[in-house]
């Protein structure tokens, strides 16, 4: 160091003449950094009310409060976070965990008030609260507070790369399209234990899914059990609300995943596949569930149809101690689930696993027994204290176009393919329809073509009234069908089935669709005049929807049955139809037309049946 002198330090006196380095706030304003962690902003339009911010807050500064003016819909609760700035430490963990990224921090940090109550604050942002967020020209730092803040003053905000949740799901191993279209082997392979635990770890446990699930399954709980490597506990949680996990784990319409908080900026938790993992990983339900029928009540219930609704109603009532007999015309349980979904989506063994468990509780299944033919509906009503109708939609609809009687019908086709003698298919097939059943038909037809005409050129064509964006089939079904090489013709409607001289099908004449629905959203297709094309094919299968078959109900009784405007069976809050003691649920009652809603109906009806029988 330089030789010191007592006068040396006086050199710094030169700074007295310079410009001061310090700034005089607020006269010389200083802008906070772009990542500043100040007061919260919350976009109420994208906030789902999932409450993960409150869950992660290290100081319990966040509380979810109900907002009366907001409506709760599946996937979006009417709750929003409220901050207590007496507790908040501005760490921003709430921002990094926020699945939709609606919660952010701003660059505002002034709030001076004599009323401590004002420090408890429900944040919104400048988009939805123009009053509190003022433009630069009217903003004054002297008035700055939680109710006088700058517009466009976002600070620390969410970044998906640094989010505390995993936006991508563990990929489900599947057979590649080239391989899977050659057989009926199950396409989805299923998670391994490690994959399942990994996927279960993604769930934040907010429970948005549970509100969206028609059966209100305890999804967070059973996923947590998978994460904790306790599939047995998980199965017990599932069985509280859903007695057919192997079936639902494969083809549930997963309303839950559509509501998952992670869907907004990533992929939802694979809830359905986790349920499937649980049911697959437990060989014997009985030893795990340790359920026994309740004390015998001496009451008997007859269930028509062994589909998801019938199975569920039987399960719930049997646990209450009632005697249950289930009638179904098929050779096994599952109802339309047994007929419809192809084996590559739902192997029969999976259906039987669920059905066998319910049978093991003492439910009496009478298969190959058609109500209305082998036993009479009136006989059932006399024999049983209550009757449940879970008959589903069993009648394929036809387009009714010229020569349509020559076409195959979806359900007949699918049902036959489940037997030892599947349908003999031709090399060129046209499938009419754009729903999930149509996809099943087309993809089964494609597989049968590959098996029956190996090495030959085959074509499977689909034609649907709906365009790509309005097709009722799920996007994954459409995607998988395209991967397998099915040719799509969206926005074309059938006009006439063309026949050759021998009366055999040679093609389908189609017209271009103008619109499918009218202004009020009702189904009323219109077509463009003159725009036509021919789809060549030697086999046409119609898969345009199914309707109920009430032929088993005697005419006099049928007249007494009430129907809604949507032509659904009208039931009260207990699930009872207008016929006393006759309850109903599933596709003949609800408009969702899926298994899990049938289970939800069955739950309500089983409670209703129980109450009704007790009161008798």
């Amino acid at each position: 160091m330089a030789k010191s002198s007592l006068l040396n330090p006086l050199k710094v006196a030169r700074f007295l003449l310079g410009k001061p380095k310090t700034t005089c706030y607020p006269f010389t304003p200083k802008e906070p950094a772009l990542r500043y962690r100040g007061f919260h902003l919350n976009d109420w339009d994208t906030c789902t009310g999932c409450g993960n911010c409150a869950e992660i807050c290290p100081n319990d500064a966040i509380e979810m409060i109900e907002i009366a003016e907001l409506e709760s819909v599946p996937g979006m609760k009417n709750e929003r976070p409220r901050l207590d700035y007496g507790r908040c430490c501005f760490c921003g963990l709430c921002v990094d965990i926020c699945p939709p990224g609606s919660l952010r921090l701003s660059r505002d940090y002034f709030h001076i008030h004599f009323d401590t109550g004002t420090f408890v604050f429900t944040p919104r942002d400048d988009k939805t609260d123009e009053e509190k967020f003022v433009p630069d020209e009217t903003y004054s730092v002297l008035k700055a507070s939680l109710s006088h803040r700058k517009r466009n003053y976002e600070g620390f905000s969410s970044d998906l790369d640094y989010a505390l949740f995993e936006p991508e799901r563990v990929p489900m191993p599947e057979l590649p399209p080239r391989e899977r279209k050659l057989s009926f082997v199950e396409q989805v392979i299923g998670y391994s234990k490690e994959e399942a635990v990994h996927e279960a770890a993604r769930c934040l446990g907010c429970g948005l899914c549970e509100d969206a699930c028609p059966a209100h399954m305890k999804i967070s709980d059973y996923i947590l059990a998978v994460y904790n490597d306790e599939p047995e506990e998980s199965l017990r949680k599932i069985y509280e609300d859903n007695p057919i996990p192997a079936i639902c784990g494969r083809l549930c319409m997963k309303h839950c995943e559509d509501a998952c908080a992670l869907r907004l900026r990533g992929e939802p938790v694979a809830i359905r596949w986790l349920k499937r993992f649980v049911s697959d990983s437990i060989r014997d339900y009985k030893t795990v569930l340790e359920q026994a029928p309740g004390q015998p009540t001496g009451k008997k219930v007859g269930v028509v149809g062994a589909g998801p609704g019938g199975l569920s109603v039987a399960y719930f009532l049997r646990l209450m101690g009632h005697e249950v007999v289930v009638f179904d015309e098929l050779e096994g349980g599952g109802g339309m689930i047994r007929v419809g979904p192809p084996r590559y989506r739902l192997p029969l063994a999976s259906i039987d696993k669920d059905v066998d468990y319910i049978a093991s509780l003492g439910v009496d299944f009478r298969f190959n027994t058609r109500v209305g033919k082998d036993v009479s509906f009136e006989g059932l009503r006399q024999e049983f204290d209550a009757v449940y109708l879970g008959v589903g939609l069993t009648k394929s609809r036809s387009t009714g176009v010229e020569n349509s009687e020559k076409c195959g019908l979806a359900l007949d086709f699918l049902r036959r393919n489940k037997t030892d003698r599947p349908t003999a298919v031709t090399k060129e097939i046209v499938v009419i329809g754009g729903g999930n059943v149509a996809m099943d038909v087309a993809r089964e037809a494609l597989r049968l073509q590959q098996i029956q005409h190996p090495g030959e050129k085959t074509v499977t064509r689909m034609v649907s009234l709906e365009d790509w964006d309005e097709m009722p089939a799920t996007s994954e079904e459409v995607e998988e069908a395209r991967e397998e090489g099915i040719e799509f013709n969206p926005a074309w409607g059938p006009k006439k089935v063309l026949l050759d001289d021998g009366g055999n099908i040679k093609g389908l004449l189609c017209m271009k669709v103008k619109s499918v629905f009218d202004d009020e959203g009702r189904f009323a297709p219109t077509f463009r005049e003159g725009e036509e094309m021919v789809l060549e094919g030697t086999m046409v299968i119609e898969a345009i929807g199914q309707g109920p078959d009430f032929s088993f109900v005697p005419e006099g009784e049928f007249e007494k049955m009430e129907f809604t405007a949507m032509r659904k069976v009208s039931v009260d809050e207990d699930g009872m139809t207008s016929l006393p003691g006759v309850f109903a649920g599933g596709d003949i009652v609800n408009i969702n037309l899926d298994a899990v809603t049938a289970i939800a109906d069955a739950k309500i009806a089983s409670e209703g049946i129980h109450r009704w029988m007790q009161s008798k």
Partner: protein
Amino acid sequence: MRELELYFGPQHMGMVGNFSITLKVEGDRILEATANPGYLHRGFEKLMEGRSWIKNFPMVCRINLLDPDHMEMAYAMGVEKLAGIEVPERAQFVRSIYLELARVSSHLFGLWAYANMLGFDTVSNWAMYHRDLVLDLFEELTGGRVYHIYVWPGGVRRDFPDGFTDRVVETLHSIGGCVPDYDTTFFNNKLFSERARGVGVISREEALAMGGVGQVIRATGMKYDVRKVDPYAAYDRVPWEVHTRDDGDAYSRICVVRDEMIESVHMIFNLIDAMPEGDVYNRVPNPLKWKIPAGEAYVRCESSRGELGLYLVSDGGEEPYRVHFRTPSYAHGLAILEKTLVGANIADVGNIMMSMYVVAPEIDR
């Protein structure tokens, strides 16, 4: 002459209210000193046992407000060791740069306290101003000025913003340009050096026996620095020196601090040059149900005041089973301070204490 018991703090001109020393004096000379910690005990270590792994992350920094970043680093390293989390290479560089900025900011704060204690108000104001410039950098990088909450398990919380390294270099150059002024006014100023030389002397053996680390032992000529002996982050990727002095007195200690600050600045420049591209964060499992395998870990890093250790035990649950910090001020502020005060003048109590840069929150936790 009559002996007198004198209370130095907690309310005293040279003490900020969170620590006190009871002195037994004879005239102006101290016969015995007893440090009284506990005014700032917040029970952090116990508190952490009841909070999830992620919820502890915004809290550890609060143990020591002057050097929060090394607390974050120790916690992140502990969790990473227990959970077996890899940290991306770029994040290691970002961490090193960040921690060296923290060292500069913390040393400037220490310089403020020390100079202020001895009445060098000009220097203390400069130090505070320059620290503020570093805090501006922290604000830009992390969104916070004092509690940065930035180094978390798996890496760091955000990458450098665009042009950040340029501003780091610019700021450090402007602070470095003032080193000659600091030297003239403070370090080489006889008014200061005469007061600090030969005061609070401790030998290397004594210091080591009482758990001395950091500047306290480097001022006795021992080249001991965790960044060298047990390198973490990116400290072994760039060349740098450990600075020492030999006299073991207050003057040596503050000069080590001065040299270290300059070394940190050079190291930051080297780190910036060598920094690779890439990710800065390996995502940790869902923090709301994060369980860490059972086990125990001891990790250490060189905080601004010396070796900072963390002993972390997990019983396989969602919260730590036991957390214990080994903080440098615990040794410096209790045992070594009590020892070095004996024989000193009353006027030098603050002088000796601040030369060891005792931070009471670290003692109490």
